[in-house]
């Protein structure tokens, strides 16, 4: 509802791409749901795939080996860098400046090539299976990741300078859409948006999963809560994620990439996966857009009897 130029009230009408994934989950075997798990947040597919796979692993109590966990952490954090690059592009596109959008997409394409080389796809992967990985992260691929990150580290300050030193860019973001910490918590805001309002809530620090405790994760928060603070939080998170990718690749030991009894397709172990009767698993991950949570309720068969996910409101 507009009053001349100022927005008076807003009633968001969501659901235009509602695909009823909970119903679909109830009618697919656990391992067959992974392609849809990628599409829960299609800009950060690896993060949500890992969320779903780790939830199923907790449901059946299967621990992936150390090498798989470190490889997954490297990919999840690299996916955060790619997702934040896409955010940088669409932010400047919405502000009417397509140049930074095209530059950020160009950098994102280079990292998508790395994903395609390692995980088999540009946007949706299916690289993580229940109990480990489909195929290994070879040293050559790890070296390529490090090379790409070094290149990005050199190029990124140039784009960020183009946005930060541009007075108009700052003027459009500073003091716009300020959200107080109290409102952020009350309305369930999570992720970079909450941290920009001063809410110190990051699942990686709050309930560490993967190897965040060993690698020492530093949470990025700001107090202002306006668009500029959200810009700064995401910019610093990108640098933190790059550091984490390097640390995860360094920590990655030699060893098997699949646990004993991992749900592979050849041999078709995944087709007859047993789940506990009335078992329940609830997992939270820090996805690029906010806290993602999946709850799975199993009834013993190879089909979840109820799956529910909290969409990340970041």
């Amino acid at each position, binding site marked *: 509802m507009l009053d001349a130029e100022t927005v008076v009230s807003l009633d968001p009408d969501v659901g235009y791409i509602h*695909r*009823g994934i909970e119903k679909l989950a109830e*009618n697919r*075997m656990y391992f067959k749901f992974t392609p*849809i798990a990628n*599409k829960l947040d299609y800009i950060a597919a690896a993060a949500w795939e890992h969320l779903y796979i780790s939830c199923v692993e907790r449901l059946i109590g299967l621990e992936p080996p150390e090498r798989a966990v470190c490889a997954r952490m490297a990919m999840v954090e690299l996916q955060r860098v790619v997702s934040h690059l896409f955010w940088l592009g669409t932010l400047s596109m919405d502000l009417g400046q397509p140049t930074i959008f095209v*530059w950020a997409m*160009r950098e994102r394409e280079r990292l998508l090539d790395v994903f395609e080389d390692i995980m088999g796809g*540009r946007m949706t992967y299916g690289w993580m299976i229940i109990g480990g990985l489909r195929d290994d992260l070879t040293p050559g691929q790890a070296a390529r990741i490090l090379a790409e990150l070094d290149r990005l580290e050199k190029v990124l300050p140039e784009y960020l300078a183009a946005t930060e030193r541009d007075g108009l860019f700052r003027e459009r973001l500073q003091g716009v859409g300020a959200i107080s910490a109290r409102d952020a918590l009350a309305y369930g805001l999570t992720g970079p948006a909450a941290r920009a309002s001063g809410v110190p809530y990051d699942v990686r620090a709050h309930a560490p999963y993967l190897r965040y405790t060993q690698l020492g994760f530093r949470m990025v928060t700001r107090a202002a809560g306006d668009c500029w603070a959200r810009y700064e939080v995401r910019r610093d998170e990108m640098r933190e994620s790059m550091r984490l990718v390097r640390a995860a690749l360094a920590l990655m030991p030699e060893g098997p990439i699949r646990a004993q009894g991992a749900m592979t397709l050849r041999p078709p172990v995944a087709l007859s996966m047993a789940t506990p009767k009335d078992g329940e698993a609830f997992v939270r991950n820090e996805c690029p857009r906010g806290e993602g949570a999946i709850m799975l309720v199993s009834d013993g*068969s190879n089909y979840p009897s109820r799956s529910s996910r909290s969409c990340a409101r970041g």
Partner: protein
Amino acid sequence: MSLKVLPSELPALPELRDARDMDDPHAGKGFIMHSVRGFIQEMTQGLFAWSEGRSLWPLTFGIKCCAIEMMAFGASRYDCDRMGVFFRASPRQADLLIVAGPATIKLKDVIVRLYEQMPEPKHVIAFGECAICGGPFWDSYSVINGVDKLIPVDIYVPGCPPRPEQLLLAIMKLQELIDERGKAGRRGRGKTQVVGMPEVTREELLAQVMAHPTFLMGHQSGEPRIAPTPDELARATPTGQPAPDAEGRG
């Protein structure tokens, strides 16, 4: 319950909604402009087909992950500007609708309205499995199996999500389609082409799709596509509604 599909059940191609009479001056076409355009059209058929193909302005309308690939198609590596593709925001100024994502039941009338708002020489590309047949959500209650149930589609681009190069190839195919129609002087729908697959007309495509049982559009035909597993049948619902049998899950 047999899953055989009667040929009559093939969903008919929705007829062109634009039934306006071209000669009626008040039908949204100034009389003078119309007769002048008629004359120009006859003399410069090939030239206009060339120009229509080389300047396809798509509408910035993306739905899901295929929209991200459409953005990558517009960015610098794949660069749709080379083909003369320039994204426009208003349907009035666009002549290509790239449906990038599933048509959900809530989005149905939005897509149809956008299509009808676009001026006439318009084309539609069904980009990605979701737009072709519902994709990974084919059995969802809120996804319509294929955009061609709503609007006539010219080019299908399979893939989930397809690579931006496939969209470049689709644009080239569309240009060939336009040139071919331009030479033949027909304004109707020519052969529908599926990018990356051999030449196939829309009817052949639908026949293939209909013939293969797993592609059968579940809820379009009313009864469930794959019913619950046998043990779930044992715990029949309180209402005792008998669930039809099926040939296995997965």
